């Protein structure tokens, strides 16, 4: 980790208007969704729930909000994928010393 050079108040001064603008942009987009016809169908879309979950994370404390939001928008990983995908015959012919 590299220590951040700026203090928190300095970062806040530099980014306040930017954050304000981005929150307003999201708010206006949500308003636009609700104003348009068939807003209920969007609310039933699983991606809308992802956006709601992302917004909830913004209100939480901690240092890893960006990573948490990335994970919300990520597909599930299956640790047994290799057994399902790669049968022995489909794997490249590796040298005998290589376990796979």
């Amino acid at each position, binding site marked *: *980790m590299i220590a951040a050079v700026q203090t928190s108040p300095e970062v806040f001064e530099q980014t306040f208007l930017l954050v304000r603008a981005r929150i307003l942009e999201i708010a206006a987009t949500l308003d636009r969704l609700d104003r348009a016809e068939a807003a209920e169908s969007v609310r039933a879309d699983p991606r809308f729930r992802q956006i709601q979950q992302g917004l909830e994370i913004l209100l939480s404390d901690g240092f890893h909000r*960006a990573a948490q939001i990335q994970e919300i928008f990520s*597909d599930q990983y299956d640790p047994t994928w290799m057994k399902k*995908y*790669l049968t022995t015959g489909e794997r490249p012919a590796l040298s005998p010393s290589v376990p796979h």
Partner: protein
Amino acid sequence: MYYIDPHIHMVSRVTDDYERIARMGCVAVSEPAFWAGFDRGSVDGFRDYFRQLTEFEPKRAGWSGIQHYTWLCINAKEAENVELSREVIKMIPEFINKPGVLGIGEIGLNKNTKNESIIFQEHVQLAMQLDELILIHTPHLQDKLKGTRMIIDMLMSDRRVQPERVLIDHVEEHTVGLAKEEGFWCAMTLYPITKCTPSRAADIIEAYGDDRIMVNSAGDWGPSNPIAVPDFIQELRKRGHPESKIKKIVYDNPLEFFRQCRRFEFTPPDVLADAVSAAEPVSAK
């Protein structure tokens, strides 16, 4: 500040872009083989592409004083066609020892499919046989976390793979730790909408350190910014980071990784400038 863009698709950019990035301080680029925007129909299509990467692009880059390096493979999108992929992989050794070729890349996954995984492993097999560096593309958006884990699973299951000879590209907040913890090199791509911004890349550097990490523009035929690396430099400067720290990420780190390639030859910009200056006629000085 001099910098290196370790991932940029210059075949998709105009000559003016070489000139622009040179003026911003770019002294070298590395260009991985990638998707042309359409699926190529034959191995000869790739043969022509590899000639362009190894013959013409170094020349075109040189017109602006930029040193050009490249990586060879069939990209993950076209890897869905296993038969064609195997023909391309078989053809790579024809080009691998050309000057400026750094290794196999950008291989990886796109939609995390079975065929992509098979061809990924066959590329790794080739890299191991030829003792080459590997440059890896990780998928976009919702596929990225799963795809990065799958890629690391495949790499870690091959005992011959040395993590320090592999660069995992397009890492973001949720994947950078996975790559670094296993000892791989990694890179962040500064790309509009779908990848990292300069400020988020700077945040990641502050959180994960400046070892084994670099930044690139991945400038290509889509909406992208070939001078994104200077934007990142400016972001770190605005935050008060020292020049030596910035130089490590945008210049020293790419060189450290590339120097593992036995063919890698690089002329530092000051030496290059002296050579050009010495070659000029007296009346031109």
